[in-house]
């Protein structure tokens, strides 16, 4: 098992005719991801890697029972693309582009909740269930199938964690990129709850960073969980009031410091890892 996606997921690429849409479609296909079609309004009827291109997501759903979408479009087109997918009945929308305007994400989130869809991102590296499907831009090389679930706001940290878990033989059930933008389609809480229900997942690694309050809020969920959560938070020494690469990575006032996040996570019962090497060590101690 896995969460959110597996080898049966029927994936469409929104923006498939663009440069990065095309590039990552090829990569994902190579991994074995079941991509069924793509969209590009005004380019319906074209083909990309033998996949049909449609004008609307509705057609992808009607013709091919698509249930998952990954968006490769400039940030300003994401609002439309994500809501189109949600309205068409897509159950998981993966928003790869970064710097989505906050107001747009608020509306996307609202519509997603209303229609029962899940959105991950913006600025997510995607989601991978190793050995089954890889949706987004995560590099295959770091990942191997296994028993740890990972959820992270950062792509690069995800790779280091995956690499660590692969080299120490744990592997991953599913790895979810929550995204680096300030307002996200999903929260740590929601992904943690999914892992808690997933049979294959024995423990969860949560990787947070400065900015926002999603980590702080995860405390409540972790408290109620049976599975152990190992948490790592970047930015303990981050400066105040300055964005660090990710749109969402900024300490504003007293909100969003790594220390407050670590404190909350620890209060919730998470095991804190300072470096990547701590992760397999904690897993060993927990006898996972």
């Amino acid at each position, binding site marked *: 098992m896995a969460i959110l996606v597996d080898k049966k997921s029927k994936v469409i690429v929104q923006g498939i005719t663009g440069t990065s849409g095309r590039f990552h479609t090829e990569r994902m296909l190579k991994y074995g991801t079941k991509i069924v079609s793509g969209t590009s309004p005004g380019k319906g009827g074209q083909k990309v890697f033998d996949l049909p291109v449609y004008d609307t997501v509705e057609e992808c759903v009607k013709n091919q029972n698509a249930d998952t979408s990954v968006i490769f479009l400039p940030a*300003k087109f994401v609002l439309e693309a994500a809501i189109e997918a949600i309205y068409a009945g897509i159950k998981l929308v993966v928003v790869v582009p970064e710097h989505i305007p906050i107001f747009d994400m608020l509306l996307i*989130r609202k519509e997603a909740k209303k229609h029962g869809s899940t959105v991950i991102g913006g600025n997510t590296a995607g989601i991978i269930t190793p050995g089954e499907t890889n949706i987004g831009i995560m590099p295959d090389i770091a990942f191997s199938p296994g028993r740890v679930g990972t959820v992270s706001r950062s*792509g690069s940290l995800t790779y280091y964690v995956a*690499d660590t878990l692969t080299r120490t033989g744990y592997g991953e059930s599913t790895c979810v990129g929550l995204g680096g933008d*300030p307002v996200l389609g999903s929260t740590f809480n929601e992904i943690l709850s999914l892992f808690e229900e997933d049979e294959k997942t024995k423990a969860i690694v949560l990787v947070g960073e400065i900015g926002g*309050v999603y980590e702080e809020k995860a405390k409540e969920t972790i408290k109620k969980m049976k599975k152990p959560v190992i948490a790592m938070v*970047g930015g303990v020494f981050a400066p105040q009031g300055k964005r660090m690469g990710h749109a969402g*990575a900024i300490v504003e006032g007293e909100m969003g410091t790594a220390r407050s996040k670590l404190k909350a996570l620890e209060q919730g019962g998470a095991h804190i890892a300072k470096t*990547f090497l701590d992760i397999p060590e904690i897993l060993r101690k927990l006898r996972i």
Partner: protein
Amino acid sequence: MRLYEFEAKKILSEFGIPVPQGKVITSSEQAKRFAEDLKKPVVLKSQILSGGRGKAGGIKFAQTPDEAYSSAKELFSLKIKGFPVEKILLDERLEIEKEYYIGVTLDRLNYKIVVIASSEGGVEIEEIAKKHPEKIKKIGLDIDEKLFSFQAFGLAKMIGIESSDIRTVGNIILTLWKLYKRYDAKLVEINPLVLTKDKKIVACDARMSVDDDSLFRHPELEKMGVEKRHEEGEMTQREKKAKEWGIPYLDLDGEVGMFPGGAGFGIMGNDFINYFGGKPANFMDSGGGPTPERLAQMLVLLDENPKVKAIFGARFGGISRCDDFAKGVVIFLKEHGLSKPMVLRMTGNMWKQGLEIFEKAKKDNPELFKNIEIHGIGTPIEDIAKRAVELAKKAKK
């Protein structure tokens, strides 16, 4: 991204919210002249992008034009949080009867826009929240929900505004919400909103922060001279240069130059350096699959910085391939050279091929690599960080 007080007040004023008579000045002479024009006691407020301005001595009062002149002179010689005061907002001094707080902000967790009012103006809202949570009144709205006048009137009523003023204050609250929506703001607050002795309602101080990522739909902000900037503090020369090059970069206080891949690792790598006893000189993000040109720019930023004593490099080849990365770095070394010691780890996609490229280049020209240590997947990244701290300490001696 934060606006200066004078920019925020300009916007408020364009939306019809009363602000004090005021002017931005850049010299003490202007201060005197404008104080003469005003014919009133004035307040001189340093325009900086951070809180705590008052405690740092950044605000001064003056009764006469001459006092305004000397106060301005003092302020212009001041540094607040390391940055010189370059602009002062000179406002008429209000005679205050009562101070209120009103603001609109974002509740990221609940995905709501929150309209806030309090009877306790003049102090930070976080402080009010701690000391008098009961004195804060809120309305949470979805992004597609409307704030109605009656809700704004009700909020005004709840914080103890007199009946005769609730329309005035309510309309200011309503306008504040409209302005928040209009500008894709993250925060707009008037603190304090002042009831003057002569019974006028005036926005005495204002703070506004907008969503950097929505600037593409707000050309009017650019027209006002508002450019991308920090939430707090001014940009350094080097940060401005990096910005021109499109590289997310921050100057920090330490001596270890950071040459990482990825924003997340950039943040975490800085922590590692600290954990192991060092101090990073910067934050930087390469973006995915940097071109040789970008790699060169990143290294130039570090090489030119005299504070940087050693460089910590890390590359996880994901979408980008390590061989391409290695090629780019080699081109830079050949064309520019690197004057600082660097320890670099490269792993992920095609890491072996990348190492081979380095080995070959080193064999061809060992001199270029004399200060550079290159590691592969066999060495944990933590050890690389430790080594960078060591190198920096050695170089400092």
